[in-house]
C-alpha cells in the first residue's frame, strides 16, 4: 500500500461529461484537484450519439456556459452542424442542437484539462472510498495506491458493475471497449448507499461509404451556425449534413422475429430503461400500427467514415441487427462497424443527496451524472459543474451554491433528483420547468453569469462580453421604444401585407411588436433597423409579445420564493410533529427538505401535513408575547 505524495482539495472520479466539468470548476476556483480516469484516451468521450443540445438540453448547455463551464465551448469548437429547433414556436422553447466531431470533442476536452492550472489528471481505477467517522478523505485504487483529498466527487457514468448485452450474450464492460468498475460499486454499497440498476442502449455504427445517400432527405445545419457559448466568435470547422431515412414493414418483421433472442424481451435485462429513449424493438413492439420510424444518419466526424443511425438503439443479436438495417432505404448494403448494445449499470437513488449534491450519508462525498440516475451528456455536465463548484467551495469553507427552480433548468434538475429520487433514467424536458417562459436559452447569461462571476468561475473576458451583451439589449429596447410611428399609407400597406390591422393612431415600434403577427425581423427591415443577434432578438420579442404571461410567471416565482425561504432546521425531528401521518414522517425524514417549499414537492405530502409543519415551526419560535 502506498500513498500518493500530493494531497488534494478535491478528487474527481471519472472523466466523462460530469467529471470534466467538476474537475475544471474545482480547479478554476483555485482548489488543487485530481481527476481520475480508467482510460486517459477517453476523457470527455461521447459514448452514445455525437450530438449535444436539443430541447431542455440546449438550455442546460447555455446555463453551463453562463456559469463558466466548458461544455458549450467544447461543442462550439468541435461542432460540424448547428441547428436551432422550434423556430416556429416562442423563444422560450427554442433550443440549439449541435453535431460534434466525436474524436475532436474528446481531444479538445483532454487538452483543456491538461492545460488547466491546479488540475492533475491520473489514469487509475478506484477500488474503494476512504472514509473515517462518516467523512471521506480519499480513494484507494485497484493497484493499491491511496490518494488523499478533502472532498471526493464520484462521476462513474455507466461504469458501476457495467454489463453489456448484445442478444443473449453479455459481458462486463463500462462502455464497449472499456472495463467496468466493480469494486467501487461494492464499496458504495458497503458504505450503506441504496443502489439500483438502470439500463440504457445505443445503436450500431455504420460505414458511411456503404450508405447510398442519393435518395435520402438531406438536413443541413442553420446558416450562420447558432453556436452555444458567449465566448465563441465563429464556427471554425467545416459543416456537415445529416440525412433522414425510415424503417419499414420489413424492418419491423425482422425485429419482431428477433425478439425471442432479445435480452430485453426475454427478461435477461433487469435494469430499468428510459421510456423516452426506447430501443427500436421497444418502439416496434409497443406501437404496432406505426408503419415506420424515423432515423437520423448523423456524421461521427470529419475524418472518420463512421455514421450514427440515431433512432435504432438496439440490443438484438448482431445477425438481427445486420438484417434489420439492410431493409432500410439507403442502407441496403450497409456495413456495421460496431454493434448496437444495451448496458446495465448501478446507480444510487439521488434522494440520498443534499441539494449541493453532497451525500447525506458521508460528508465530503458528492455524486454527479449517471450515478444519480440521469441520462444525457448535458444533464451529467450540469450536475458535474454544480458538484465541482460545491466541493471546491466546501474545501474553502464556503456555503454551497444552490440554484432554485425559478433560476435555472439546472435548479429544476437537481431539485427533482434530490426531492423525488428516480426509478428510471431521468431526462430533462421543458415540461418539467414550472417557469418555462422565464428559463430560456436567450436569457441564460442574464440569469446566471452574475452568479458565476460572484463565485469566481466567470473570467474577466466572459464578464466583459456579458456586460456588452446586456447593454446591447437595453439599448435596442430603448431604440424600439423611441421609434414613433404614425398612421401612413406606407405603414398600413406593410401591416396589411403581413395580415395585421392598420394603424389608427400613432404608436411606438415596441408597442407594435406586441402584435402576434408582427415579427421582429419584419419590423426591423421595415424600419431599416439592424436586426440584433438572435439571443437579443429573442429577448426583445418575448418581452414584447408575452408580457402578460411573463408577468404571471414572475408573480408565481415570488410566491414560490416565499416558501423556499421558510427554512426547516437541520435538527427538526419530523416524528415529533403532531398531526403528521406515519407515511409523511417517513418521507420527510428520508428527504430531509431544507425548506417548506421543498417539503411540499415531496410526493404524497398533503396540504394538511404542510399545515402541521407550519404550526410546529411557529410553536418552536420564541413567543412574541
Amino acid at each position: 500500500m502506498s500513498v500518493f505524495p500530493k494531497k488534494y482539495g478535491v478528487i474527481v472520479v471519472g472523466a466523462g461529461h460530469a467529471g470534466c466539468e467538476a474537475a475544471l470548476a474545482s480547479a478554476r476556483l483555485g482548489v488543487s484537484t485530481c481527476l481520475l480516469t480508467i482510460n486517459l484516451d477517453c476523457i470527455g468521450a461521447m459514448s452514445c450519439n455525437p450530438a449535444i443540445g436539443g430541447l431542455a438540453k440546449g438550455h442546460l448547455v447555455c446555463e453551463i456556459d453562463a456559469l463558466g463551464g466548458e461544455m458549450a465551448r467544447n461543442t462550439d469548437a468541435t461542432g460540424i452542424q448547428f441547428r436551432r429547433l422550434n423556430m416556429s414556436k416562442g423563444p422560450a422553447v427554442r433550443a440549439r442542437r449541435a453535431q460534434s466531431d466525436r474524436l475532436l470533442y474528446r481531444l479538445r476536452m483532454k487538452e483543456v484539462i491538461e492545460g488547466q492550472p491546479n488540475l492533475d489528471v491520473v489514469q487509475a481505477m478506484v477500488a474503494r472510498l476512504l472514509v473515517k467517522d462518516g467523512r471521506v478523505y480519499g480513494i484507494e485504487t485497484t493497484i493499491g495506491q491511496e490518494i488523499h483529498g478533502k472532498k471526493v466527487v464520484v462521476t462513474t457514468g455507466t461504469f458501476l458493475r457495467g454489463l453489456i448485452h448484445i442478444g443473449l450474450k453479455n459481458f462486463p464492460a463500462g462502455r464497449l471497449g472499456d472495463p467496468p468498475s466493480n469494486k467501487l460499486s461494492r464499496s458504495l454499497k458497503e458504505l450503506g448507499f441504496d443502489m439500483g440498476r438502470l439500463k440504457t442502449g445505443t445503436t450500431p455504427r455504420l460505414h458511411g461509404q456503404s450508405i447510398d445517400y442519393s435518395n435520402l432527405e438531406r438536413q443541413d445545419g442553420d446558416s450562420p451556425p447558432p453556436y452555444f457559448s458567449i465566448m465563441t466568435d465563429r464556427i471554425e470547422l467545416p459543416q456537415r449534413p445529416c440525412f433522414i431515412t425510415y424503417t419499414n414493414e420489413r424492418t419491423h418483421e425482422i425485429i419482431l422475429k428477433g425478439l425471442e433472442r432479445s435480452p430485453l424481451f426475454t427478461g435477461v435485462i433487469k435494469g430499468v430503461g428510459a421510456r423516452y429513449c426506447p430501443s427500436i424493438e421497444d418502439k416496434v413492439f409497443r406501437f404496432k400500427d406505426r408503419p415506420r420510424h424515423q432515423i437520423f444518419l448523423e456524421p461521427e466526424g470529419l475524418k472518420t467514415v463512421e455514421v450514427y443511425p440515431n433512432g435504432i438503439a438496439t440490443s438484438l443479436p448482431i445477425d438481427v441487427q445486420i438484417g434489420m438495417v439492410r431493409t432500410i432505404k439507403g442502407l441496403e448494403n450497409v456495413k456495421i462497424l460496431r454493434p448496437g448494445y444495451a448496458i446495465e449499470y448501478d446507480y444510487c437513488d439521488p434522494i440520498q443527496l443534499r441539494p449541493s449534491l453532497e451525500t447525506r450519508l458521508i460528508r465530503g462525498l458528492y455524486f454527479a451524472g449517471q450515478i444519480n440516475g440521469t441520462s444525457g451528456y448535458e444533464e451529467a455536465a450540469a450536475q458535474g459543474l454544480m458538484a465541482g463548484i460545491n466541493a471546491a467551495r466546501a474545501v474553502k469553507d464556503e456555503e454551497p451554491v444552490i440554484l432554485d427552480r425559478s433560476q435555472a433548468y439546472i435548479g429544476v434538475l437537481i431539485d427533482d433528483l434530490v426531492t423525488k429520487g428516480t426509478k428510471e433514467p431521468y431526462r430533462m424536458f421543458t415540461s418539467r420547468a414550472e417557469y418555462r417562459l422565464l428559463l430560456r436559452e436567450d436569457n441564460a447569461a442574464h440569469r446566471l453569469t452574475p452568479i458565476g462571476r460572484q463565485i469566481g468561475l466567470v473570467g474577466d473576458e466572459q464578464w466583459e462580453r456579458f456586460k456588452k451583451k446586456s447593454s446591447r439589449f437595453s439599448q435596442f429596447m430603448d431604440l424600439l421604444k423611441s421609434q414613433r410611428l404614425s398612421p401612413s399609407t406606407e405603414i398600413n400597406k406593410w401591416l396589411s401585407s403581413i395580415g395585421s390591422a392598420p394603424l389608427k393612431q400613432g404608436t411606438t415600434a415596441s408597442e407594435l411588436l406586441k402584435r402576434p403577427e408582427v415579427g421582429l425581423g419584419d419590423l426591423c427591415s421595415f424600419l431599416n433597423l439592424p436586426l440584433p443577434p438572435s439571443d437579443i432578438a429573442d429577448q426583445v420579442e418575448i418581452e414584447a409579445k408575452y408580457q402578460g404571461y411573463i408577468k404571471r410567471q414572475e408573480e408565481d416565482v415570488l410566491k414560490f420564493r416565499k416558501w423556499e425561504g421558510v427554512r426547516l432546521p437541520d435538527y427538526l425531528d419530523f416524528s415529533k410533529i403532531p398531526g403528521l401521518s406515519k407515511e409523511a414522517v417517513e418521507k420527510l425524514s428520508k428527504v430531509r427538505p431544507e425548506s417548506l417549499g421543498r417539503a411540499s414537492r415531496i410526493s404524497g405530502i398533503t396540504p394538511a401535513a404542510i399545515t402541521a409543519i407550519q404550526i410546529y415551526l411557529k410553536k418552536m419560535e420564541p413567543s412574541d408575547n
Partner: protein
Amino acid sequence: MHLFDKEQDTIAAIATPVGRGGIGIVRLSGNKSLAILRSIFRPSNPHCSYKSHTLFHGFIFDPETGTEIDEALCVYMKAPKTYTREDVVELQCHSGPAVLRQILDLCLRCGARLAEPGEFTKRAFLSGRIHLSQAEALKDVVDAQASGMSLMSVKGLKGDLEDRFSAVRDGLLHCISALEVAIDYPEDEGEILDQEDVKKVLEEQVIGPVSRLISSFENTQVFRTGARVILVGRPNAGKSSLLNALCGEERAIVTEVPGTTRDVIEKNIELQGIPIVLTDTAGIRHSPDPIEAMGMERIRKLAHEADMFLWLLDPTQGTGREEREVANLLLAFGGKKVILVINKMDTLDEKIRKNISERLFKGLSGMMKVSDLKTLDPCLISAKTGQGLQQLCERIVKGLLGDRKAKDVDVAPNLRQKEVLKKVLDHARSAKRALGKGLSPEIVAIDLRQALDELGKVTGETVTEDILDRIFSQFCLGK
C-alpha cells in the same frame, strides 16, 4: 405548488353554526375584505367611513342586479388588531340559512375564497395571534383540514360525479400532452401538433362538461340553500293554521327558529330533502285595518327573498280589497312562483264545493290578467282536517324543482368543488382563446397546467410525472 397558492387569499365562511341562533355571521379575512364589503354593502349612512372596529347599519345587495338581499350590521376590523391579524369583516344578519348562503356566495363572487375547515384559526396561530397555551387545540385544525381535504379527494366523490371529474382531467391531460410533445419533440415526424384536435377536446371534454357541472350546481342549489315560502292572504284565511298543519305533517321536519327579531313567524321544514323556511307575516299585531293586519309592509320587505308564495283564499269570504292588495304585490314581484290555495274546504257544502274555483276566479279576474290567472291552478285543502295537504306538499316541491329530480343533487358538485370548477373553466377558456389567437403551445400550456392544478384540488394532484406517463404511453418518441 398549489399547496401555497391559497395563503394570500381572502377567505370567507359562515361563522355561526347552521340552523342555530337568530343571528348569522359571515366572516371575511384577508386584504380584500374591505373591498368586498364595499361592493356588497350599502350603508344607511351614505357618509359611512368604515371606521375600524365600529358597527354600521345597512343593507346587503347583489352588485350585479342591485337587488337588496338583507338588512345587516357590519364591522370592519383593520389589521393587525383582529383574530387573524389580517383585515377582517363581519356581516351580522338576521336571516335564515338560505340567505346566509346567498351572502356567502356574493362574497365568493366578489373575490373571496371559501375558507378551509379551521383556516381562520390556522391564520390566527401562524400570525402569532393565539399563544402557545392555546395551541394544543391546533391538532384539531390539522385534522379538520385533513378530513376536509379527503372529502374533496377522489374518495369523497361518488360514482357519476367522480367519473365526470376524471373525464375532465383526462381531457386536460390529452391537450397538455399533445402540446408538450410538440414542444419537446420538434423533430419527431407524425407527432406534429393537431391544433384542431386540441381545440375540439378542450371544448368537448373540458369546457362543455365543466360548464354543465357548474350549472348542475346552480340547478340543485335549492337543496343546499333551501327555499323561502311566504304565506299571504287576508286575515283569517287560515295562514297560521296552514303553517301549523304543514309543520304537523308527518313528512315535514320542524324546527323552531328562536330569537327571531322580525315581526314574522318562521318555521323550518324539510320536504323531500329541500330545506324550506315557511314564513307567515301576520298574526302578531292586531290592527283594525285589515290590510295592515295582513302585514303587507313586512311581506314587501321579505318578498325579494321569497322563492314561492302560497296565496290563501277564504271561500267563505270571497274576494275583495285584500285580494287586490295581494295581486298587486305578486305583480310587483312577477316571476316568483305562486300556488293558489283554497282553504276551509271542509266548511263548504257539497254544492258550493263543486264550483268554488270558478266562483273565486270570477272575483279575481278583475284584479289580474286572465293569462296570469290561468297559471294559478288552485289547490283545495282544509288546514283543519288535513285534506289536500299531501297534494299541496307535492305541488310545493314540484314548483321549487321544476323538471329537476331530487336525485340530481347526487351528481352535482358541492360549493367547494364548484368554486374549483369555476377556476378550471376560466383557465380552459383562456387557453382556448390563446389557441384561437395562434399563440405558441408553451403559452397555451400555461393556462392548461393551471386548470389541471386547480382540478387537482378535487381529483388529487397531477404531477409532471403523470403528464410524462401520458406522453410516453400515447406517443412513440425518442431517437
